[in-house]
């Protein structure tokens, strides 16, 4: 206990010295998120400084081993770090698919050389990764993917197309599922790493209903990659793919918790109170139910963490959390638009405040929550089969 208290004091002092003032203010929007990478343009020099300092300390990935650039913290120390960062309202120094998704599976499945090569650069935010999973013909049925990877003796040759590749147009590298055996389905998939600057790689942004373009189509035409760029064994990629999806689902399900404007405040402002109660009784009841669901979700996350700490295997819960989290965020966005009234129906221009436009855009963007990272329907299948043991139709 004394150790953890002294760790808290040291951490507090270090953050006090090293977290720049502008990094202790709430993020105004998604534009303030720092993603790093070779070509990243920092809007704010203090954001760069903050990333460099946290990266050098390994605290962008606090629990990864020090050997691979991580912070080497245990559970309790990490909790202290997170609570100390919250205390000063420190922004996350780095948003990274490398940290959230790829890193954890590299730690588990990659060889020593690969870990040494890729992990430290993820920690320091030097390389930005994207995810090459879905294809035009392989969405919910991901294992139906067809991007071909052929053994050419001294290299792999890749041909095919990926879709819904998040931020592929900004990414330096791609972790990618490819077909190495066409005679079988799941057992013919491998997991490879591709440098996006390799000749034959092309990306094209996809414009969404929200007006933003967070996703791309990615094309691979005769792309040559080194033999050393396969993670795990040949045709052993599906297991890694599923494990990574688990991390992705846990991550997406947390989207709703990082809210800027609270729906209650929005409703107070735009709908109004009478005798302390929202004037629209029906909306009030639905917001209340939503707030309860939000609390229930947060409590369940805390319970799962506590059970995991006590040694219980809670990995099967990822699909449940993904479904519940997506539902919750969509519900929240719907209520925000409703509470904002006509202020939530703008598209652009100065007639609407930026936070009003954000309400509209977030609502449209949230429609993807129940599709990306496995649709709600696919995740319900997973819960039914793996958790409840309900047999599939023969």
């Amino acid at each position, binding site marked *: 206990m004394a150790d953890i208290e002294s760790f808290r004091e040291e951490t507090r002092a270090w953050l006090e010295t090293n977290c720049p003032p502008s990094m202790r203010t709430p993020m105004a929007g998604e534009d303030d998120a720092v993603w790093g990478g070779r070509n990243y343009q920092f809007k704010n020099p203090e954001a760069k400084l903050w990333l460099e300092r946290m990266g050098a300390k390994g605290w962008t990935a606090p629990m990864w081993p020090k050997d691979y650039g991580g912070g080497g913290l245990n559970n309790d120390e990490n909790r202290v770090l997170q609570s100390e960062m919250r205390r000063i309202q420190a922004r996350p120094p780095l948003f990274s698919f490398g940290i959230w998704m790829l890193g954890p599976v590299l730690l588990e499945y990659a060889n020593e050389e690969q870990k040494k090569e890729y992990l430290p650069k993820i920690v320091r935010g030097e390389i930005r990764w994207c995810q090459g999973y879905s294809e035009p013909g392989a969405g919910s049925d991901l294992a139906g993917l067809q991007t071909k990877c052929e053994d050419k003796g001294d290299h792999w040759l890749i041909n095919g197309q990926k879709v819904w590749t998040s931020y592929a147009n900004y990414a330096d590298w791609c972790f990618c599922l490819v077909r190495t055996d066409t005679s079988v389905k799941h057992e013919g998939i491998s997991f490879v790493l591709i440098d996006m600057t390799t000749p034959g790689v092309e990306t094209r942004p996809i414009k969404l209903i929200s007006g933003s373009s967070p996703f791309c189509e990615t094309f691979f035409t005769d792309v040559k990659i080194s033999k050393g760029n396969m993670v795990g064994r040949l045709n052993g990629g599906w297991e890694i793919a599923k494990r990574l999806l688990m991390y992705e689902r846990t991550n997406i399900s947390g989207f709703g918790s990082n809210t800027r404007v609270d729906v209650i405040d929005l409703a107070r402002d735009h709908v109004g109170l009478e005798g302390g109660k929202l004037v629209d009784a029906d909306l009030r009841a639905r917001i209340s139910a939503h*707030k309860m669901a939000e609390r*229930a979700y947060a409590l369940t996350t805390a319970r799962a963490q506590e059970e995991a700490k006590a040694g219980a295997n809670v990995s099967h819960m990822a699909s449940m959390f993904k479904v519940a989290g997506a539902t919750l965020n969509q519900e929240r966005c719907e209520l925000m638009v409703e509470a904002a009234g006509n202020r939530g129906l703008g598209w652009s221009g100065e007639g609407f405040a930026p936070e009003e436009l954000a309400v509209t855009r977030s609502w449209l963007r949230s429609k993807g929550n129940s599709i990306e990272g496995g649709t709600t329907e696919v995740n319900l299948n997973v819960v039914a089969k793996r958790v409840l043991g309900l047999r599939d139709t023969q």
Partner: protein
Amino acid sequence: MTFTLNEEQRLLKDAARDFCSEQTPVSRLRKERDAKKNGRDPELWREMAQMGWAGIIVPEEYGGAGLGYVGLGAVLEETGRTLAPSPLLSTAMIGASALILGGGDAQKAQWLPKIASGEAIVAFAVDDGAHHAPGRSALKVGGGKISGEKKYVADGHIAEVFIVSGADGLYLVKADAAGVSRRELFTVDSRGAADVTFKDAPTEALSGGAATRDAVLDRARIGLAAEMLGQAQAAFEMTSEYLKTRKQFGQVIGGFQALQHRAAKMFTELELTRSCVYAALDALDRNAENVAEYASLAKARAGDTVHLVSNECVQMHGGIGMTDEHDAGLFLKRARVAEALFGGATFHRDRYASLLGF
């Protein structure tokens, strides 16, 4: 905050599960219903009291175990699983809480030992009318006398003493006192209740006014939510088992996606509700500031969940679920009563919104 039972609570819960499955499976309620016992089972209550359940939260100096609400909640959850018909909630949770929170020394000395031993059954008389509205009571109290009417008092037909809720606080009234009359109600859940009339009946006030009343009501809600969690869990397990065994179109019906997704949805709701109930019990033991929020959260979520699961339990069983012979109906009936007692989901959503300031 913690969601994990300690060793003592774990033992209590395991013992409760064994006792309920052996001594009071659902068939016990069915048998009593058929014999028109209307929730009268003094033998079961005696056995529960011998297990120490009646005095779980009663301090040791008054003959109880001096354990917390988490332990009592764990037992209530287990009794919910088998629909065990007993005044455990009314007496061990509500009666004991009312005296611990609002009783004077003499009142505690008079009642707590009798509660802990199972000798005195307590009933909580809350609502004047058809709906839960504890803040609006026409109860009249003055000069040590109480007058008014209370409807659908759970365990009111078997109670020795009433905790009566008024707009300004709680009052203790002996059931056999002059001026107390009760009409026994035969209720849909076969547990029984009573409409009670007080006409200048002698009474003693508990201290703390409306604050004590609300604190006791919140304990009633949280305790009932724990029982409802057990009901919902058992009804879900029964349904899930049926999905794995019932065959139609040459296959088990659990293979149909239309049912799989609904089962997954029920599982999710159960897990979310479980966290709310455990957090609420823990909040009581921690003496947390926002117990009221936790109580409304737990009761509303438990109500919605047991409603969903008990209805799906009937639907997924098909025709057999509509028969009196099957247990699905017993769960549906108890669920409906538990949903309404101490405020339904609508009441608690309204209250939660007010607590959150909108």
